[in-house]
């Protein structure tokens, strides 16, 4: 079943080094759509990443730093990139050597298209 996000997620996952891209609800962390190359862990990644982003937004706001934009988590074997709004979050799981600059631009473009 395709959604309004399917084409955007397909394009993101075609980027070199991208293993998965997902759209989830910002508040509930429930997956809306996903393009996965990492098995069946999508719902877990979405729930945890959305929670992480929500807490980062609150931390930044509490610290008087304003709105949170692009967020990147570096792990031993890869990176988690998250960008979002009040309603949805876009999550990309990438390999460690992926071109994060390019992925960031694509994610920013995607969120602008989504309004």
């Amino acid at each position, binding site marked *: 079943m395709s959604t309004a996000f399917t084409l955007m997620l397909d394009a993101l996952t075609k980027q070199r080094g991208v293993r998965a891209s997902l759209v989830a*609800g910002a508040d*509930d962390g*429930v997956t809306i759509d996903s393009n996965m190359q990492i098995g069946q862990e999508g*719902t*877990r990644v979405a*729930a945890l990443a959305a*929670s992480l982003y929500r807490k980062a937004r609150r931390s930044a706001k509490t610290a008087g730093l304003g709105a949170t934009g692009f967020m990147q988590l570096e792990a031993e074997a890869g990176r988690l990139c998250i960008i979002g709004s009040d309603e949805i979050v876009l999550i990309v799981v990438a390999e460690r050597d992926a071109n994060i600059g390019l992925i960031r631009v694509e994610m920013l473009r995607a969120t602008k298209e989504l309004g």
Partner: protein
Amino acid sequence: MIKASVEPWIEAPLKRFVDDAGVVLALLLHPTGQVQAQHGFTRAVDIMSACALAAAIHVSSAELGRQLDGKPFGGLHHAGKERQVFLAETQTQRGPYILLTVFDHESSLGLVQLYFDEFRANLAGAAPIPVAPPAVTLNEDFEKELNSNLNFLFGRA
């Protein structure tokens, strides 16, 4: 001191669920409405009401699922303005149980569902094999058993 569970094997899986999911309240009960474990409650009367309502909602939503989809719904979620409720059934060798949990903006439906799946596996793994078939709670004994469980949880046993 308020205890967490009537039977000790339930305590660790429930504590882990509460810690991981960051929920405010959690209640594990038999589908009959008998309390088995709790987190976050301070009054026996609240547990009694929550158990009765959860059991009723569970049986109603299961029937609604059967009518609409041919099988009971897997879980029920209600989002309030400040707090949300998640209710779902889990199976063990000791029979089915219902988990009722309440969470706020510190958690999310996604996290609660994620950790409920883990709780389901942990509870099934922790459940001892029953030596005899589970005893059926008779209507005339229901209140006595409910009070007995509440007294145990609230240290009045």
